[in-house]
């Protein structure tokens, strides 16, 4: 409530102000501006039609769908395994987390238990992906505001982790490393050593980014008190992730619907107070520290063991066995050619990706393909609140609002 008041006093002209009568009568009219779809700060192909009063946004209408590829329709035509590479292309900045969310949903549908080591591996890689996502977000957000240095520094660190992914699964961005029932391959000693080295190297770098930004007057002026959304509104709009927590709502699925190895790790969920862009920035910076903490704990707690559930009708056999054992080869062939049959029913499974709640709603009729697969993409839901959050601010602030959602159009348009 207090936030709303602050917003109106700062941004609306007071009609009773003594100077307002002395102003000369100027002819004013509202201007309609098309922003995008080809615009460097719309984070992809997004168009926004803005009604402007001077430089202030009166109303904005997002026009989406330039990157619509019909992923939900494609899902109905392939087996459950075949959809994993499609999930890479949703949020192409953070493919691992999409794989993770999808595999969790199918495992819930099948009621499949994943071995302990696989759970730890999944958590480690998901948190590495969260660091990559937040670094990418920070660089893009700072670039939107004009701080190019941060962009280069963030990409330097992001590059280390992308190379780490490359060594892990052979791809930097479209990873497809998660499998239904486990993960594709284990961490090698070299990968573990590199990750440990990174964890020692990285926390001082987070401080460095904060030094760049938190004493920077331009950054503070462009983020503090901008795009304020109250907790009630944020909940009502269905926002999630740092965008919701920035408004002071303690909602994190990792804590409140714990999954994978998160319940066995100690970490805190940073929550903001003011609901402005600065708080959302602060939350993401704090989450970088938390991610480092989670990865360290997982590496300590992880024990040797299988990395894939042993359910021959669903999960792939280890590759070595496929080459030496006839039954395993048949199992592999059948899974790749026909897939597996899921029990009839419907589930919704939400996962806390770094942008917010990434959920999959799957309806199965007992066949080897999903009958209906619905993706609850955080970017899409966040765009629903764009008009509300941009009203009363400048055009240049509108650019930072895309940034503060961490929007990726591949996920938004699906």
């Amino acid at each position, binding site marked *: 409530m207090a936030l709303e008041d602050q917003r109106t006093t700062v941004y609306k002209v007071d009609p009773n102000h003594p100077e307002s009568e002395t102003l000369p009568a100027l002819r004013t009219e509202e201007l309609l501006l098309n922003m995008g779809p080809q615009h460097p700060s719309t984070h992809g192909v997004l168009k926004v039609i803005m009604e402007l009063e001077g430089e202030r946004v009166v109303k904005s209408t997002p026009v*989406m*769908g330039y990157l619509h590829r019909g992923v939900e*329709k494609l899902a109905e035509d392939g087996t459950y395994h075949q959809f994993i590479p499609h999930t890479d292309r949703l949020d192409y900045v953070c493919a691992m987390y999409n794989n993770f969310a999808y595999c969790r949903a199918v495992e819930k549908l099948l009621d499949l238990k994943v071995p302990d080591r696989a759970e730890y591996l999944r958590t480690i890689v998901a948190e590495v992906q969260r660091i990559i996502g937040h670094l990418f977000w920070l660089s893009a957000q700072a670039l939107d505001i004009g701080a190019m240095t941060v962009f280069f520094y963030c990409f330097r660190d992001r590059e280390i982790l992308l190379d780490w992914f490359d060594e892990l699964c052979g791809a930097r961005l479209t990873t497809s490393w998660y499998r239904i029932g486990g993960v594709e391959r284990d961490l090698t000693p070299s990968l573990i050593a590199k990750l440990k080295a990174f964890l020692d190297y990285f926390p001082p770098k987070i401080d460095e980014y904060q030094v760049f930004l938190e004493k920077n007057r331009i950054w503070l002026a462009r983020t503090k008190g901008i795009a304020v959304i109250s907790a009630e509104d944020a*909940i009502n*709009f*269905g926002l999630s992730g740092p965008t919701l927590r920035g408004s002071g709502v303690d909602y994190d699925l990792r804590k409140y619907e714990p999954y994978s190895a998160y319940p066995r790790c100690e970490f805190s969920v940073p929550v903001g107070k003011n609901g402005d862009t600065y708080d959302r920035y602060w939350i993401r910076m704090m989450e970088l520290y938390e991610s480092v903490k989670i990865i360290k704990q997982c590496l300590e707690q992880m024990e040797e063991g299988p990395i894939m559930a042993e359910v021959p009708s669903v999960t792939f056999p280890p590759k070595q066995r496929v080459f030496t054992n006839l039954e395993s080869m048949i199992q592999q062939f059948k899974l790749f050619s026909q897939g597996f049959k899921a029990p009839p029913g419907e589930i*919704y499974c939400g996962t806390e990706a770094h942008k917010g709640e990434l959920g999959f709603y799957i309806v199965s009729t007992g066949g080897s393909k999903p009958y*209906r697969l619905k993706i609850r993409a955080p970017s899409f839901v966040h765009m*629903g*609140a764009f008009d509300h959050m941009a009203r009363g601010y400048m055009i240049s602030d509108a650019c930072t609002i895309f940034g503060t959602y961490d929007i990726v159009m591949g996920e938004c348009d699906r």
Partner: protein
Amino acid sequence: MHPLARRIQETFPTGFVSSTEWRGDVAVTVTRDKVHEIAQFLRDDPSMDFDYIVHVSSVDWPDDEERFEVVWEFYSIRKRHRIRLKTRVPESDCVVDSLTDLWRGANFMEREVYDMMGIRFRNHPDLRRILLPDDFNEGYPLRKDFPLRGKGWRDTFEFLDEQPR
């Protein structure tokens, strides 16, 4: 029956159709005319307190008499429970009440359902296509009778496997 479902059944004996609980998900099917009333109850009743809308979705069952199923998923941030609300809509009268006045986040989600499945939402403030272009006239792509390869001009492409050998 799950206590949440029983509560809905007791409060709305005529609107309640059935409820299921599977893999920990509670789903309640209600009649179409009571959707808005029940949704309002879910949001405002202190023991329900579903303040958060997770997604709006739809499923096409072409062989059923009431062909479409509209699905809402709600979450309560304070009580930390979930519920799925479902209703059936016939093809001839493909309309259901919009919940945008209760959860503003439903605005875009319902537009997407309209875009993809052709279900119209009564009292929706701005019911237009959202992902597909406004002049897209080939129907609703997530319906089961819409071919995967597309309709219209896309259907005139010759695919490799259709060439005579």
